[in-house]
């Protein structure tokens, strides 16, 4: 594996007496889709919130492009080019696609919104992602389908020259065709050189697009392996028991 763009080493996080993450190691590489799997309560959300700067880990190191960095707030994460697409999308239904993509980071000329350059840039990003399903980028988000909304949310994340995009269950609420659409988009993001983290419960999705798979079990990294070295049954074992015959555990790798 090439040098990871972001490496977590020995990350620990407790909420009061609950030890949610225990010595987690996690690597994310540019141009790769890294799937993060694990049962409910395994610590997936906590882990990505640590990466996004929403939680600060109790101890542990973050290595960004080989250099040690501190992520102590969402701003730090954004500055490094880390973007999260949340499960519940966080789009404003009453605003159009362009407004949503630039929400909170509007382009201005003086103190006035620069609509034309925002629209042109939004168009460029959507074209760059080969998004052709949206009729007009000036239509309000409420008129979009679930897959289109997910697309807008993802496009918003890549608008800012981001390097790492974390997707929290992007296909959870989608139908078959739309899931396919979004997975294609996820693949394209990685092919464009982004590091993509895909959180999913759906192993079909994971095996379809991921390059490597990281399984969390009760707050510990059970294993992070290349997709081609495992079969779905082994991943299920990792998720449910934390170990699987024939898979090198994360602890043993060190």
């Amino acid at each position: 594996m090439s040098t990871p763009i972001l490496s977590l080493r020995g990350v620990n996080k407790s909420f009061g007496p609950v030890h949610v993450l225990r010595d987690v190691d996690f690597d994310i590489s540019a141009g790769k889709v890294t799937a993060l799997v694990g049962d409910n309560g395994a610590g997936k959300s906590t882990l990505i919130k640590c990466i996004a700067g929403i939680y600060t880990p109790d101890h542990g190191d973050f290595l960004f492009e080989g250099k040690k960095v501190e992520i102590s707030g969402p701003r730090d994460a954004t500055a490094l080019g880390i973007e999260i697409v949340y499960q519940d999308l966080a789009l404003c239904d009453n605003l159009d696609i362009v407004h949503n993509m630039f929400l909170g980071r509007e382009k201005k000329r003086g103190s006035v919104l620069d609509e034309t350059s925002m629209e042109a840039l939004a168009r460029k990003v959507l074209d760059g992602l080969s998004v052709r399903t949206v009729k007009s980028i000036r239509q309000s988000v409420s008129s979009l389908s679930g897959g289109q909304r997910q697309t807008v949310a993802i496009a918003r994340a890549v608008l800012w020259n981001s390097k790492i995009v974390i997707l929290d269950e992007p296909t959870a609420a989608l139908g078959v065709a739309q899931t396919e659409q979004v997975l294609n988009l996820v693949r394209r993001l990685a092919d464009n050189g982004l590091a993509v983290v895909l959180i999913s419960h759906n192993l079909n999705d994971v095996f379809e697009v991921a390059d490597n798979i990281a399984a969390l079990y009760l707050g510990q990294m059970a294993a992070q392996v290349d997709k081609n070295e495992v079969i779905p049954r082994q991943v299920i074992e990792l998720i449910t028991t934390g170990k699987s015959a024939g898979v090198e555990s994360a602890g043993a790798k060190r």
Partner: protein
Amino acid sequence: MSTPTVAEDSTEKATLKSAMHDYWLRIKAGDIGSLPAVLGLVALCIVFGSMSSVFLTPGNFANLLTQAAAVIVIAMGLVFVLLLGEIDLSAGYTAGVTGAVLVILITNHDVPWFVALIASVIVGVILGFGLGTLVARLGIPSFVVTLAAFLAFQGILLLLTGEGGTIRVEDKTILAVENSNLTPTLSWIFFIAVSVMYVLSGLHSINSRRRAGLKSEIIKLWVLKTIGLLIITGLAVFALNVERSNNPDLVSLKGIPYVVPVILLLLVIGTFVLGRTPFGRHIYAVGGNAEAARRAGINVKRVRIAAFMICSGLSAIAGMIFASRQNSVSPTTGGSSTLLYAVGAAVIGGTSLFGGKGKMRDAILGGLVVAVIDNGMGLLGYAAGIKFIVTGLVLLVSAGVDAISRKGNSV
């Protein structure tokens, strides 16, 4: 030369058709905007015009504008708060309190009118800051906070106006706002200046979109809309320039009432803030999905507080208009049906009670509808009771249309 023109023309025709189709789709999807208010206004004018010989006279038209003015300005402020999905029930009495501050400063302390006006707006903004802070920081529902303020401000107004109950205002400028008119020549100059600015800003935005290679509004549609608007407003100016005094030798009454440019100025500023600035965009975002706005890095609490401050600040302007119209302030200034009419105006105009949808011009359209009902039924000799019932029903219908269109939208 002729061939490209024809080709361009045919594409424009096609797109004009598709623009109509898009508009129809938007209406079907529940995005009706101010269409019901415009239709309602036309229908009401036809009904009252046919039933009363006075209704469609220039004199009554001018009267209508001055009657509607204060409610329109309060409704403009309420649009900011309603866009967040909040409400300000105290806006009427905020106008009363700030109007009292204005009049007391002018009459009892001989302060120049503009200093007094600035002071009263500042008082309004401070009251709004208090309301907004309670809503945004403590998380008390705005309904409760402003209901409490409704009562408390009524008390403050009672204390300010004191035992006598009424404080007269004799400042010429303040009185002129509701009682005097621009001269007919000035009225036309004003109309032409505003029209030119409107056309230029429209052309500028179309041009800059074209240059950026973006799809812009179809020129033909824009020209049609602009010409229609200019004809209607031009006719209004013409009607207002007709002599409407019964005894022109004694007092001449013609021209645009001063309050019209005041409202127009507020409309332009408000529309600019809501449509063109990041702050305005954030108001829509918070109203649409507060959690999404927060995650996008918008300071939701600050936006909420600012909206309440703007609402109360505009109420202070309405307070000035009340003082001008009544020549005084009294303990009932901004009371009784004022607030309900203002909320009604915003909602009838097309602003959603659920937040996230609404425009500045809604306040004017809705305010005119409310004023037309009030004025027309008064002319027809209906009792105040009937007027309230009808206005209440109109508000109910508008809120119903809003709720149903929202439902249609979410399915």
